Each structure stands twice: as C-alpha cells, then as structure tokens.
C-alpha cells in the first residue's frame, strides 16, 4: 500500500493516511482472528461429532 500510495500522488495526504491507518487496524485488530480459526481447525472434528444424536 505504501508503494502504491507513493506512486499515486493524485490522492491527497488525508486519503493516503486513512488507507495506512485502516490497513494497520486490519492487521492488528482483525487478522488475529485467523489464529483462533486455525487453532479450532487444528483441534480436529472429534469433539464436534462426539455427542450421540440421541444426546441432543
């Protein structure tokens, strides 16, 4: 994004700064969801399917 912004002087500084800030927010505050998803996936399906149908 930084490179792109440098190449595109058409957009103002405020526009560019907002893109950086939004990307930073995404990486710091949204992307860590991946780690939680990955942990759940790696745990496998056994606990998911362990209950018998009758137990529901």
């Amino acid at each position: 994004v930084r490179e792109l912004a440098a190449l595109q002087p058409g957009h103002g500084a405020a526009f560019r700064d907002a893109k950086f800030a939004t990307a930073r927010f995404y990486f710091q505050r949204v992307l860590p969801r991946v780690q939680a998803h990955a942990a759940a996936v790696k745990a496998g399906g056994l606990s998911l399917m362990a209950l018998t149908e009758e137990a529901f």
Partner: protein
Amino acid sequence: MTQYQAPLADMRFVLYDVLGAEALYARLPQCEGATRDLIDAVLEEGAKFTEQVLAPLNKTGDVDGCKLEGGAVRTPKGYKEAYEQFVANGWSGLVGPIAYGGQGLPESVGAVVKEMIDSANLAWGTYPLLSHGATESLKHVAEEWQREAFLRPIVEGRWTGTMCLTEPHCGSDLGLLKTKAEPQADGGYKISGTKIFITAGDHDFTENIVHLCLARLPDAPPGVKGISLFIVPKFRVDREGKMHGRNTVTCGSIEHKMGLKGSATCVMNFDAADGYLIGQPNKGLNAMFIMMNTARLAVGLQGLALIERCYQGARAYARDRLQSRSMSGPKRPDKPADPIIVHPDVRRMLMTCKAFAESGRALAYFACMQVDIVDRTADPEERKQADELLGFLTPICKGLMTEMACECTYHALQVFGGHGYIAEWGMEQYARDARITTIYEGTTQIQALDLLGRKILQGGPAACASSWR
C-alpha cells in the same frame, strides 16, 4: 436516515491504483474502448442514478413489499419506473455482448456499478442481477437462434431472466430434483414441476420473463448427471424470436420474508410449459454452474454493498450523536457532550466496517478482473490460470463478504443503540436484508465445501499454489 453516496474515490483507488485496471483493459482484446475517461463517466452517471433514483426507493420498497394480485406480482411503488429509467439510460446492456446489443464493457467495471446499485437498493438490484446470470448461460451454451431470440431482449432490458433450480424437496442437493421435460415432435419440450424461491420469478417490469429451468429428460440417469437446462419463457417465443400467447408457467405464491421484501421470491408452477433445451442433454449442471458462478460473485458484491451502506449510516450517526465525554477529556467542550465517534468501542465497530468495505472491494473487483481475463485473453495459459484463480476466489468472495455483511450490519446497528433497532433510521433493514446473502446461491457451508473439496483438495496443491502466486 443518511443518503447513500457512492464512494467514488475509494472505488477509483481500487480499480486504477491498486489493481491497475487501465493497463489490463488496454492489453485485453475487445476491451480497448474501456478507457479511464469512459469508465469515469460511467461511474459518475452510475452514482447519480443509484443515489437519486434507487436509494429513495429502498425504505419504501421494504415497507410496501411485493404483492401477488390475480396471479401477477406487483412490485413496490416506483420500482417499475426506476427499471424503465435504468433501461433507457443503457444500464441493462453495460457489460452485455456487443453482438447482442450490449456495450461490452468489462465485468470489473460492471461490478463497480453493481456495488452502487446494491448499496442504494439491494432488493431492486435483484431484478437485473438475475438477468445477468441468465445472460452468462445463454452467451456460453445457447445456440445462435436462442441467443438472438432470448439473449438480445435481455441485454436490451426488454425482458429479464431467472434461475429456476430449487424445488420443495431439493435445495443444496440438486441431484434430488424432479421437474420433468418431455420431448415434443417439433423439437421443443414440455416442462412440468414446481420450483420454489425463484427470485424475480414474476414482476411487472417487462413484457416477458425468460426462466432458465433445470429439469430431467425421461431417459436421464439419476443424480446430478441427469439434469438438463431449459429456456421456458413466460410468454411463448418462436424460433424467430416472435412472442406468442401465455405459456403455462405461473407464479403460485410469493414468500413472506425476514428482509429483501422488495424482491419477489416466487413459487413457480410449470404445467407442461413449452421450453427449449440449452446446451447438451444431461449437461445442465455445467450450464448452470456458469450462471451460478456469476451469481455467487454477484452475491459477494451484495455483501460488500451492504457493508459500505451500513458503514455510511453508522459513520454519520457517530459524528452527530452526542453522548458522554471522551475518556481522554472533552473533545467538544462547546457541546453538552462529545459525539460518540470519540469512544473507542464505537471506533472499533466503525473501523471494522470500514476495513471490510475497503478490503472486500479490492477482493471483489480483483475477482471480477479474472472474469475479464477468462472472457477475453488470447493466451490459453493466461486463461487457464485466471480461471483457476477465479474458481478459488469465488467461494471466498461469496462466503466471506456475506458473513462480514451480517457482522458489519450488526456493528452498524449497534452504533445507533436503540435507534438502530427501530425502523426510523433504516439500520434494521440492512441487518434483515444482509441475512439472506449468506443463504442464497449456496449457503456459506456450501461455499466452504466448494472451496475445500473442489478447489483445494481436488484441484491439488499445484492449483492452490498458482492461485496464490
């Protein structure tokens, strides 16, 4: 309630600066006309049309809903007039093939306009959306006379299209479908069966509706290998494209739904209705997947559009609504309280919507550019790679952006507090409208199966690696 404003600066940033659309269009065959000047003009006109014509009908369409009167669907007040203006302004043929009356602009330009339409009025947007899916199937698998007779009127906006797949006992598992097609002496077919959840199955916009309907031939093998695709028009059409009397395909009822109330969801009864086979017998699934993939990308765009729209509403409210002081001291001492945009958790919700709107836009437009490459490149290797990448990205676009639309409409409503829950501010409509997007055109679960089963495990590591290249 805030007015919708097409985010033209963000759209142009993704299209031109991030994805390099100009260079792509300049090198792809039959894309040379798509210059920046032309695209900018299209986007500006699209912004005007969606902001001024479609957006004001969003709430009234939700309140009015669709009505079934004497077997015919009446759409909400103003919808038909908006469609007439849409056609008169040339929007119906924006990305349609030039040979059949379209303007032949790239799909990725059409996607930007589609985002605006869906942000302004998601329910209204379903009518042209289904036409677009039908266009893709007709373009790729129909015979020449069928294209002249059915594709041209759809591209010109005189008729619209539908996709008739689902039956009462047959949803995600198409192998179960029962609708029958009996061959006739004249080369046509008689189609009999019941289709449900047919978006835009009937309406008052146009003189005819072209149903693309999955059915089984008498000798068809069981399961998905025995499905064929048929054209069944509301009014019979001969091989010269001339319209005749009413066909025996009728709307039996319309559904009462949680949201998307301006979009007619129809039960369609086919009672020995006249139809034509499209493509090869028993190869209907292939033909259907062409329109399905188009429709899945389009639903991903619907998710994006809702994220953008609800973000705009929440942003305006958070700047305006005064409650409590900032934790770091008053920001607007001249006022009785600070605007709620100063509060960190309001920021979290706004930023989440903004981040998904902007990243989702880049993902969606990028996927649509792969469609343009597949459609137009002269290089078979480039086409193959773009096609694999597109196949990989389609369930991601559809699944991720619609799930995020549900999350973001939740956040945006939450920013309004109690005012989000009441109808006056319009936020609860977005939350209700968003909910269908994770369901139709394949639920999120079906997208997951497609991504993992078909695209990753079946495609093998090589396909994945080339997708990530």
